């Protein structure tokens, strides 16, 4: 539900909060000193400060359970603290603003929850303000303008704070997505670099040996001929690999929409990500031809296949299989890893919520990235748990389907049947 803020953000907030609290105490101390309310007031305020500081430290140390309930506790405690025992003065809404404006910098929560929280506290604050007029406002200070001023002031800072929270959240999600894409690219590049390093080890060894042998004889020996044959095979394997890789990445340079088939991309992925896929059996049922930016489909399929492969290897699945099925405007990828996603994660993945979750390990890894590309194409994505594992289905918009090429019709395809 909540995304943790960084330690430095909490540190800065804590310092600011303590500074404000001390300033408020210094301001209010002379007003109450010597009155009957002095002791309860100081004790109450100390207790409130204690809980607030403890809450922030809990956030700082990432004590999860406490952190999960604390945003609500923190908010209402501080609002009560602002209302209780205060001497309301002209422009008191500035005191309200001190807390409400700082809140979105401390905690991130969904816009709906934040909206409810802020509306309720706004109403409660103004109600107490209104009902406590006789007790807490300095005699002679009260006027209609003063009250309107407080209502408008608290409404404006509640609104600004709500909008600021949305902006911060959107920025955090943007950074998270960017970070995810770098991880995704880094992972794939690392896998490709790993393969190339392995592939050129053979040729470098053969060249060394040939160079050594050529010094000792003037004609080709049987061993040299054998080495040349091996060298030839390995160099051509590297060439094929680089050509397939070029097929996969060339669209990133041109960024143009072209006619592509799912089977051609799957074939390239099988070759380029051979070391990730290893002995997994990739079965394709049916095919689709789409007029689309190739890179988008590449990224979707690379993520789906590589993620499934990782889960299958992690679970040491016997007879590991990834099934890719195409029907009409639908593309599905399913594996037999036995991995399941919990209901909450499925809800987040399949819902329209922009909230992100940390529970994207296993089959969920890279889901955000896949969803990004699916949305860019204008399609819809759905994950579901099947008997043998997790399946992903993408519905493409009909306008990108190729009318020229016959699509293979498969009857009553469903993930549970194909596994």
């Amino acid at each position, binding site marked *: 539900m909540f995304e943790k803020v960084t330690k430095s953000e909490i540190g800065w907030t804590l310092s600011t909060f303590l500074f404000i609290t001390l300033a408020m105490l210094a301001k209010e101390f002379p007003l109450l000193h010597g009155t009957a309310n002095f002791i309860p007031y100081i004790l109450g305020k100390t207790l409130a400060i204690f809980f607030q500081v403890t809450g922030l430290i809990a956030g700082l140390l990432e004590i999860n359970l406490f952190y999960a309930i604390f945003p609500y506790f923190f908010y209402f405690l501080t609002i009560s603290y602002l209302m209780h025992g205060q001497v309301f003065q002209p422009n008191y809404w500035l005191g309200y603003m001190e807390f409400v404006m700082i809140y979105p910098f401390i905690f991130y929560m969904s816009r709906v929850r934040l909206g409810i929280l802020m509306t309720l506290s706004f109403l409660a604050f103004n109600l107490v303000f209104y009902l406590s007029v006789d007790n807490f406002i300095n005699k002679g200070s009260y006027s209609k303008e003063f009250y309107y001023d407080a209502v408008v002031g608290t409404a404006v800072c509640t609104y600004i704070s709500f909008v600021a929270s949305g902006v911060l959240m959107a920025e955090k999600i943007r950074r998270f997505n960017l970070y995810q894409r770098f991880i995704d690219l880094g992972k794939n590049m*690392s896998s490709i*670099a*790993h393969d190339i*390093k*392995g*592939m*050129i*080890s*053979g040729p*470098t*060894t*053969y060249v*060394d*040996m040939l160079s*050594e042998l050529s010094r000792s004889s003037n004609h080709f020996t049987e061993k040299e001929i054998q*080495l040349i044959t*091996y060298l030839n*095979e*390995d160099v051509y*394997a590297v060439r094929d690999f680089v050509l397939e890789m070029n097929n996969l990445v060339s669209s990133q340079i041109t960024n143009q929409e072209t006619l592509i088939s799912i089977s051609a991309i799957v074939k390239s992925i099988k070759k380029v990500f051979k*070391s990730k896929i*290893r*002995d997994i059996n990739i079965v394709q049922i049916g095919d689709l031809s789409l007029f689309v930016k190739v890179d988008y489909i590449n990224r979707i399929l690379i993520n789906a296949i590589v993620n499934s492969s990782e889960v299958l*290897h992690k679970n*040491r699945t016997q007879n590991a299989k990834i099934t890719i099925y195409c029907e009409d405007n639908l593309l599905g990828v399913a594996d037999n890893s036995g991995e399941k996603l919990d209901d909450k994660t499925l809800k987040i993945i399949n819902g329209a919520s922009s909230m992100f979750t940390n529970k994207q390990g296993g089959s969920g890894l890279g889901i955000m990235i896949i969803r990004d590309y699916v949305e860019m194409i204008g399609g819809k994505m759905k994950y579901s748990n099947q008997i043998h594992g997790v399946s992903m289905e993408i519905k493409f918009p009909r306008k990108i389907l190729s009318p020229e090429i016959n699509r293979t019709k498969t009857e009553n395809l469903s993930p549970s049947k194909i596994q």
Partner: protein
Amino acid sequence: MNNKTHTPKILIVDDDQSIIRALLMTLSRYGEIEAVNSGNKAIELLKGQSYDLILSDQEMVDGTGIDIFNYIRDHNLKTPLILITAFISEELLTLSIKSKLFTMIEKPFTNIQIINEVDVALIPFFKKDSISSN
């Protein structure tokens, strides 16, 4: 080397056939070479027989190079292991500093690199062989 009574027994572990082929060509001068394509198969072999040197890939389908090394360490075997890896991580580097039985070669390797590392790793074998033949 020709004067030795015994030849070392070397095990190659890699799931890439082209690497196995290259290593077999390079190491054929040493003596008895065996090759398997997974870490777990190598561990199974170690349960029944001893080797004078193991050259292993790190990332494989079934069992890693580190799994083999952990088996060697846990069973107090004296077999040195040369790990062939595309990426030398901090963890691997620390392990190579801590243990005399563990060294690494980064891919893409050359013939000379392999021979140098294998010669160094087999020094204990040749010393032992020399003492027993005297």
